[in-house]
């Protein structure tokens, strides 16, 4: 196995001897020489007999051995008489190792195609969707059951964890939520003014801002931001605990993951999202008032009067009453996705992004259902 730099660069030379081909391998051959060797070997054709002479080969690697053995097998199958001779020492050992180690292909049944397979896939997708919906309902039930359990046995309730999560999902989200709502207020005032000015009805911009923000935009956009921010955080935190078997460890230690992980997180969201929604409402109206003052000359005092006269408090109630529902949806979807993480880093990433998508979708769907509901009862 000595290899020094004096090894001559090896090669394959073909010579004809009495109707037979003699393929002589010389020198040291490695992966770099393999493409050329393959080309030369491909030119050998049955039915002429071929003798591979390796007595001058100093060193070959497994790739070269594989190419020689394959060429021999190909010629032998085509009916030619072939022989490998002269291999010595390490060269012979590698040839033997490769010959014994040649992989044996196993044909796997090809995946089915056609209408039947498409139907099977469709069915599996529908069943998978229904199953994840059932999983969501299951976790929702677990959350409610553990919450009621904590009411009966307050000792099991984890106040510290709840406060920690309140800070993470509530307090730390205030700046982004307030800024977002402020900008929405500004945009609404600006666009509303441009349209309403045509009719000389600038003053109604107050109603436009107040009603749209209080009823819909304030809480909906807050929920969407929280869905992106918090659902992903829940999934990542619970998912990485799942990956490292911490959740299994909890179970064996008699700690209920529902109590320890799910109730504090979801309850924190339920408590914090209405507050965030309220902050968003205030920031949005503030932004709208500021823009009305600058753009339309509606003074803050006049804005307040108009707001108190024209906007019923039910609008704010209708908006905020949705918040706890959104919170439960976001929290449970985030936790559920975290528990669905497998044991690979890839599945953590996949579940995190699917949690965000599902949470945002669920929030918008719930908002649409609320709209229909309030329309029907005439609020």
């Amino acid at each position: 196995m000595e290899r020094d730099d004096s090894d001559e660069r090896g090669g394959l030379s073909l010579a004809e001897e009495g109707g037979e081909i003699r393929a002589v391998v010389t020198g040291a051959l490695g992966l770099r020489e393999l493409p050329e060797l393959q080309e030369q070997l491909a030119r050998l054709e049955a039915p002429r007999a071929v003798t591979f002479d390796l007595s001058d080969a100093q060193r070959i690697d497994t790739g070269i051995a594989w190419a020689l053995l394959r060429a021999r097998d190909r010629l032998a199958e085509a009916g030619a008489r072939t022989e490998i001779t002269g291999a010595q020492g390490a060269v012979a050992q590698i040839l033997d190792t490769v010959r014994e180690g040649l992989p044996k292909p196993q044909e796997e049944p090809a995946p089915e195609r056609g209408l039947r397979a498409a139907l099977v896939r469709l069915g599996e997708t529908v069943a998978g969707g229904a199953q994840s919906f059932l999983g969501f309902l299951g976790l929702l039930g677990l959350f409610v059951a553990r919450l009621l359990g904590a009411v009966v046995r307050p000792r099991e309730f984890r106040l510290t964890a709840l406060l920690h999560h309140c800070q993470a999902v509530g307090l730390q989200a205030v700046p982004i939520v307030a800024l977002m709502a402020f900008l929405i207020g500004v945009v609404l005032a600006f666009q509303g003014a441009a349209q309403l000015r045509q009719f000389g009805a600038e003053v109604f911009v107050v109603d436009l801002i107040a009603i749209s923000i209080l009823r819909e935009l304030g809480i909906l956009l807050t929920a969407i931001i929280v869905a992106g921010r918090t659902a992903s955080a829940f999934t990542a935190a619970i998912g990485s605990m799942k990956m490292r078997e911490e959740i299994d460890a909890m179970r064996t230690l008699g700690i209920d993951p529902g109590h320890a992980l799910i109730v504090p997180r979801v309850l924190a969201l339920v408590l914090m999202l209405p507050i965030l929604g309220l902050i968003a409402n205030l920031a949005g109206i503030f932004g709208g008032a500021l823009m009305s003052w600058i753009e339309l000359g509606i003074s803050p005092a006049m804005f307040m009067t108009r707001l108190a006269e024209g906007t019923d408090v039910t609008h704010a109630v209708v908006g905020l009453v949705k918040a706890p529902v959104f919170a439960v949806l976001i929290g449970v979807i985030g936790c559920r996705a975290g528990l669905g993480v497998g044991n690979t880093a890839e599945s953590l990433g996949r579940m995190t992004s699917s949690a965000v998508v599902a949470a945002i979708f669920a929030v918008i769907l719930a908002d649409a259902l609320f709209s229909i509901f309030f329309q029907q009862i005439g609020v």
Partner: protein
Amino acid sequence: MAETVIEVRGLRNQFGTHVVHDGLDLDVYRGEILGVVGGSGTGKSVLLRSITGLITPAAGSVRMLGTEMRGASEAELDALAERIGVMFQDGALFSSLTVCENVMVPLSNVEGLDARTREALARLKISLSGLPWNAGDKFPSELSGGMRKRAGLARALALDPEIVFLDEPTAGLDPIGAAAFDELIRGLSRALGLTVFLVTHDLDTLYATCDRIAVLAEKRVLVTGTLDDMLEVDHPWVREYFLGPRARAARDAIAAGHGRE
């Protein structure tokens, strides 16, 4: 005496104020299987990583296959990388690629190889590592720990390296799987003429595979030699390690195995 393929002189590694190695010397000869042992925290993996160039030592020199690692050009390091293979502890396979694609990754740097040859060579390496054909089409997450290690070995062998570095090859394997892996390492090393640098905790692996052993202690290579040499060394850690109850059990097992043969 066989040619020296790795020559470490005066190696010093430190992280902050914590000195891991100080004045460490080590030689590895062509064709041998060298086992590196040492207590936890003696810097076995750090030694492996500084020899392979994954970390730059604070002082000292590492010569591998005639190339001085410090001050080597990019081209020299690239050429060297093709002549060594590293198997990390849990295989370190790329999780988004199948096993076969993982083994094909190093082959894609070789000019002139077509895709079919690359795949065939990858399949050959997978088979030489003792994995069944259909393992090549699986993703690393679908394999057991032992199969992942074999796949990691297949990738390390992809370019027919001269030196293979193995980091804890049998850690986390059941005794049967570990014994099979020991045999695989020894068999491949002999058949392909590999030099193997093996970091391990596993006494059975030491007894079953290694030609020579290097003991890391007191921030340097305390002693190198064959297993029999180790029994003579008068150092508390070495005595405890090689003469402890587990070592005796491993030695007896090997002796019994030889007795049967």
